[in-house]
């Protein structure tokens, strides 16, 4: 019961097809942009997760703010996650704690920036 958010545009069929036909330099640039945006999303989450307050799951081995990790999975897909159980309860709250979301707002902030950058890179003349 962890919490993760993903930027995943790999199923945007036409975009994926278009990018596959672009020169390798273009795809490399988009890959770099994705890495940067996933890093920024992780930083944004780390900065906003509450420290020392909110629901705690006694079975967690690490503190939530120390548990945020990231990965790039494919050319158009990256993920930021926490393996702590508390991440889920912190994000959505419980009957005793109000939700204090960090993952959702970070994704809502970052995803449009990444989309705009991909569109910009993809529209550059060959």
């Amino acid at each position, binding site marked *: *019961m962890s919490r993760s958010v993903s930027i995943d545009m790999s199923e945007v069929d036409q975009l994926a097809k278009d990018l596959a036909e672009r020169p390798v330099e273009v795809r490399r640039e988009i890959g770099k942009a994705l890495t940067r945006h996933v890093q920024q999303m992780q930083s944004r989450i780390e900065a906003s997760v509450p420290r020392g307050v909110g629901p705690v799951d*006694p079975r967690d081995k690490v503190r939530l703010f120390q548990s945020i990790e990231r990965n790039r999975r494919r050319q158009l897909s990256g993920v930021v996650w926490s393996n702590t159980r508390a991440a*889920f*309860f912190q994000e959505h709250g419980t*009957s*005793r704690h*109000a*939700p204090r*979301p960090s993952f959702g*707002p970070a994704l809502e902030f970052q995803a449009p920036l990444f989309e705009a950058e991909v569109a910009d890179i993809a529209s550059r003349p060959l």
Partner: protein
Amino acid sequence: MTAQGLTRREQITEALQEAVAAAVEFPIGAGVSPPNVGHLGDDPLGPFQPWANLHSIASATDGPIDRPTDDSELVYQFTCVGGGQLQAEWVASEIADALDAISLPWQIGARAVVHIDIDSIGPAVRDNTIGQSTPPEFLAYLMVRLFTTPIPTES
């Protein structure tokens, strides 16, 4: 410039809470749990009064170029609480049905809700944060977006 779309949000929140509360058979708390809910009595296997809490989560504005903050998108979460997994999921389903039944556009004060989008209904999970010695509670989450716009004034 004042973000017009975000002013008087409390009217929208209150109307949402009242509309859902009127349509379901369990109490809806505004940010906190209402009284007389949960395990009734000392028997952990005894009756459980389910409920939901409404939380304001996020907001954003949009609009035409000359009034770029007139429209708003308001995100809410219903935290649905049950004594078992099925009960928590039932609470979420009842709220989803209540939201679907709202007729649009829905006028609230000087604004109208023109679209309601149920973003997600999360799976019911056991609340591990209350300790194993406490009778179990299960939580399901329903996220909903309300899109509002000002009602045109007659000139």
